[in-house]
């Protein structure tokens, strides 16, 4: 689909707003075209689509009752077989079933925690960068200080105060990881604010609100998007870290808690590689996929990098 054909179909834009819409749609389809060219990005998306589908279809593919320790029917600690392709755990649960259900929780934590971090980070960054002055000073100081606070000790402390529930794990990861987004968004806001087209719009009498929502925010989207996708990868890794320290929610199955359970039950000495390997590989694969998507996005959306690659 060529960008030109859309213009023809849309006809001549009747208003400035419509013009902007057309411009954005064209930009988006150009982006889509660029993204499709990125092999890394496409592999990443492929992995994610499959994982997401598996996660969503978990209740269809498997029986949730099988994930409950009390009702598992399999033999205990059985190696992979045709009945249990990835073997079973200490309670006789199918590791394959657990890995499928684990995708739900791990992805949920990744998305939800990143949503929290991205919203805090974006609000703080935009506010600071756009408003400037003392507000910016304070917000920037808070962000900087969150950046120097050692993440893991803080997260452990918070997790142990709040208690090990899934929601708390999400909150802990969310509120300890917004600072770098805020810093990035702030820098980008500053540069957009000073860019010629914003100056022009201001000179033409655009209100501050108009400037902020129509010019600054849309121009931040690419940066935030790329950053967010990378942040999801980090959030999933963070969930794993907390779980490996025994601070995960014991009653929800995530890949991290699976590894933790296998570890404390002695799967290493016991030689139950089938219990330890699948959740770990699943994490590597999904985090890799998000990272690849993030890098692909960055490459396309970051004009500086893009200019380079075109050269």
């Amino acid at each position, binding site marked *: 689909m060529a960008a030109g054909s859309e213009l023809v179909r849309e006809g001549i834009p009747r208003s400035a707003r419509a013009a902007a819409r057309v411009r954005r749609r064209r930009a988006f389809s150009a982006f889509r075209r660029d993204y499709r060219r990125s092999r890394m990005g496409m592999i990443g998306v492929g992995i994610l689509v499959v994982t997401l589908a598996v996660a969503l279809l978990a209740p269809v593919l498997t029986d949730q009752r099988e994930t409950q320790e009390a009702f598992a029917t399999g033999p205990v600690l059985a190696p992979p077989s045709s009945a249990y392709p990835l073997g079973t755990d200490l309670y006789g649960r199918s590791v394959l079933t657990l890995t499928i259900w684990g995708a739900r929780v791990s992805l949920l934590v990744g998305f939800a925690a990143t949503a929290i971090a991205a919203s805090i980070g974006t609000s703080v960054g935009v506010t600071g960068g756009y408003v400037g002055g003392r507000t910016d000073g304070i917000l920037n*100081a808070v962000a*900087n*200080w969150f950046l*120097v*606070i*050692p*993440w*893991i*000790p*803080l997260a*452990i*402390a918070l997790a*142990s*105060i709040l208690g090990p529930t899934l929601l708390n794990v999400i909150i802990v990861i969310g509120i300890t990881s917004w600072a770098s987004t805020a810093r990035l968004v702030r820098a980008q806001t500053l540069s957009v604010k000073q860019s010629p087209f914003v100056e022009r719009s201001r000179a033409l009498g655009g209100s501050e609100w108009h400037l902020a929502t129509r010019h600054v925010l849309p121009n931040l989207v690419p940066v935030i998007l790329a950053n967010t996708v990378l942040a999801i*990868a980090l959030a999933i*890794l963070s969930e*794993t*870290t907390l779980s*490996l*320290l025994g601070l995960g929610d014991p009653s929800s199955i995530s890949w*991290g808690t699976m*590894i933790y359970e296998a*570890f404390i039950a002695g799967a*290493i*000495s016991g*030689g139950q*590689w089938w219990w*330890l390997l699948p959740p*770990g590989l699943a*994490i*590597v*694969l999904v*985090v*890799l996929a998000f*990272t*690849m998507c993030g890098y692909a996005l960055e490459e396309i959306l970051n004009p500086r990098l893009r200019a*380079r690659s075109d*050269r």
Partner: protein
Amino acid sequence: MRGYVARKVLGAAGTLLFVMLFNFVLFRVMPGSPVDTIARNQRLSPGEIQALIADFGLDRPLPEQVPGYLWDTVRGNLGVSYTSGRSVVSVLAERVWPTVVLVLPATIISVSVGVWLGIHAGWRRGSGTDAGSVGASLVLYSTPEGWLGMMLLVVFGVWLGVFPLGGYSSSPPPEGAAYVADVMTHAFLPVVTLALAYIGEYVLIMRSSMVEVTHEEFLTTARAKGLTDRDVRRRHAVPNALLPIVTLIFYSFGFVLGGAVVIESIFNWPGLGLLTFQAIDNQDFPVIQGVFLLSSFLVIAFNLAADLSYGYIDPRVHER
């Protein structure tokens, strides 16, 4: 330059003060008073409990506790562990060493290998070396370090049985040079795990830094002067591309302590990470607070070092 240094040092001091105050507030709004921890199972009389509360200075309103806390902290008095009754400073001091033995070699290895790979990948962008090292780095970057450690335990501990495991040294420790060798063999797997966990990031950053540099004008000039490709890389590209990585090294060194928590707990390594974990398990707040302060201090100090090294390497800063 002097102004630059002064500004950075002042900034770091400000952040440190902020962290100390935060530390104070965080551990006082935490549920669980020391009395819960200490008084349990010791059947203290109400009078004794009051004395304990007073002893920890918890009977006064919060704002009044601040100056005492700050003064104590500055003097290096971080209080007494609720569980063992020993001073927090001596508890921390005991644990710093094992963590350094773990983190320093790991950082050195990951930086040197990572930078080397990054240079070559970035210089030959699109080559097999590039694709290989970027791929490997991305995979390592995506691997949870704890799980990686477990995998190494499986291979080297269970299958091959090559390395002694589970701790910092044999006990009782051998003497002299044998002791050093003993600690080194014990350190091997955790150090390798930590190094692998961090290598990916260095490769990727060094690579992109190299890629940026390859398009700079001065490289074209250097080539025009007739220098060989190798000379252009070594004498012009690498030194310029190193700038961001040097600051990154300092910067991440501050954080690597935090990363050691999981590795220490898996390899039973008696450092600060394991201490943090155990202290939180016991809700031993003075110790947690001490660890927190120490690690924040390290991050701030290394950030400052990063800024200053930046000033040292990049002459433009001198003029500011």
